[in-house]
């Protein structure tokens, strides 16, 4: 079995399985913890309206912007670049379509009812490049900013690495980086993605899920009190 076959086969199966197990383990392990009912009389009984915090907190208030603008802009740059390339690059869509077919027995279009759009490769390349640049910027920021440096741990740096690696290997594979055989680049790309999947449930990448829960929870508690969101 060559490296690419290993990456496409057993490595993928194991990493996907670990990802699923880990994510469910962590999410259920948290969501099934006890939660005491708040008996205080709500100022606003429609606490669910506080769920708007999920959207609201996507950009800091004006008062906080000065000190956080760099982090916010860079954060958005690499998130958007990463997610758009992940979901709208044609070969990726093929991957997801194949997964959908494997799970449901029907094609992606049949499953979701519409054709999943893909973006031209030029745009994907540009966004990935922006993402890579932004990730480098946030790494430097983490290393030189006293606050981030102090509070950072292994998770922060490793999570950065497993996010950075698929972007770089993906771009290298796409560009058929000179002198490197495509199938090896593709294998590295797959392996880097698999590393991401394996690490995902155990590190801070889980914020992709918990961000909604945390914002929503706080939003509802605060809304109930009429407090500032």
């Amino acid at each position, binding site marked *: 079995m060559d490296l690419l076959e290993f990456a496409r086969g057993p490595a993928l199966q194991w990493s996907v399985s670990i990802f699923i197990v880990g994510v469910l*383990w*962590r999410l*259920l*392990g*948290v*969501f*099934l*913890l*006890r*939660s*005491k009912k*708040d*008996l*205080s*009389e709500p*100022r*606003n009984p429609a606490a669910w309206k506080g769920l708007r*915090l*999920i959207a609201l*907190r*996507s950009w*800091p*208030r004006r*008062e*906080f912007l*000065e*000190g*956080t603008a760099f*982090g*916010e802009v860079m*954060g958005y740059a690499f998130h958007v670049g990463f997610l758009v390339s992940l979901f709208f690059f044609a070969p990726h869509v093929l991957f997801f379509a194949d997964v959908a077919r494997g799970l449901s027995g029907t094609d992606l279009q049949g499953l979701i009812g519409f054709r999943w759009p893909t973006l031209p490769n030029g745009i994907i390349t540009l966004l990935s490049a922006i993402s890579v640049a932004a990730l480098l910027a946030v790494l430097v920021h983490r290393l030189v900013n*006293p*606050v*981030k*440096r*102090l*509070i*950072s*741990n292994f*998770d*922060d740096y490793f999570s950065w690495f497993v996010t950075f690696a698929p972007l770089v290997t993906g771009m290298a594979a796409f560009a058929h980086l000179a002198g490197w055989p495509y199938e090896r680049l593709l294998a590295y790309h797959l392996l880097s993605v698999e590393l991401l999947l394996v690490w995902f449930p155990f590190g*801070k990448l*889980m*914020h992709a899920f*918990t*961000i909604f*829960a*945390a*914002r*929503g*929870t*706080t*939003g509802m*508690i*605060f809304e109930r*009190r*009429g*407090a*500032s*969101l």
Partner: protein
Amino acid sequence: MTASTGQPHTRKPEPLEFDKPRVSIATPEYRYDMQGEMPEAERVERAMKSFVKDFGRTAAIYMESCIHCGMCAEACHFYEVTKDPKYTPIWKLEPFKQAYKREYGPFAVIYRALNLKQKVTVERLQEWQQLIYDSCTVCGRCSLMCPMGIDIAALVSQARHGMYAAGLIPHELWSVTERARLEGSPLGATPKVFKDRLEWLSDDHEVEIPLDEPDADVLCAMSSIEIMKYPDSVVATARIMNHLGVSWTFRLDGYEATNFGLLSGNAAAQKLLTMKIVDAAVACGAKTVILPECGHAYTALRWMGANMYGQPLPFRVMHIAEFLAEQVREGKLRLKKVAKSATFHDPCQVVRRGGAIEAPREVLKALGVELHEMYPTKGTNWCCGGGGGVVANHRADELRYKTFKLKMEQIEATGAELPVTTCANCRQTFDDGQAHFKWDRKMHSLLELVADNLIEDES
């Protein structure tokens, strides 16, 4: 529990000096305090147990969500004035994040088995005492910044429970809490003192102050700071209630609204203090309990009271500013116009975290002042720097004064004549800061401002 101070500063507990303007201990330089005699391992054990006990879904979600972006630092006044990264709000919880992962999180088994997260040591908790108590006012400004939506302030309150259980809280906070628990007031406003004061105030100010009425629609409570330091607020409360013709009373079995149990992390004391007011209100059949100008008193009863009581409270809980605003809205409270400009300092627990954002402003509007809002204001207003027990913790003074500069700048920038707030704790912090910096601005009480400008009926 006896008090002792921690290594390396072995020191006999000193008597509290109650005669000073503020509760204080002579030498505040030492870094951390310890209460009780117990092996170090037991302290850690107790902290962890308390921590585990407290934990629930909400706190766990928060603990799982931090991405170490460090943005909360930008919201914290202690960081803002020092730029010292250790004041980053989430960093103040570091040992507790560590404990969460190791003791309680979904992967706790793995973390323990592989020792991926070290066991929290007593040294670490001792080191963090200063961060959790001296440099956090639980003002919750960081909770508004966090991009993940983590309520960091709520976690600090939980962390304090663990610290209290371990006997690792600042000695002054511990002793005032003990005093409140044993004497009924942290500052010596015992029922007897309160009664004497009421008599004296009633005579001096020619105002009727009902006490221990068996039946009343409204039960009023005061904070010890007001009773001991700002008695005019007591008078103002009485005058306004009488003016409105409300059936009201003070009660000696439940008059003290401050709750150092909440601030120190002593959950049992918190419940005891809360239940005094709840029981008093139930005893006189009050439909409304009006809380004084005190921020954390509002959190303690308005938002935590029912949970302490174990069922919904059989009465409404209102901050005095909310009550005044309601009376203004209903046209019952008519006020003389104050032809001055004013700015409003938002007490964190009442406004940002309490939700009474507009009520004080409605009252100010009724007073006809020209309101110059600070920047930032309302939910993101800077904390006075003395909340969360910090003003009662003398060793934090130096740091607190630094944060106070923020307030001075903010207020100066408005150009307003009257700084007004509706929290006696903020007011006390302002008075102290004013004296320290020989500042020419005096903080005013919204309650007293209203009492001074009542339009008395001609009849």
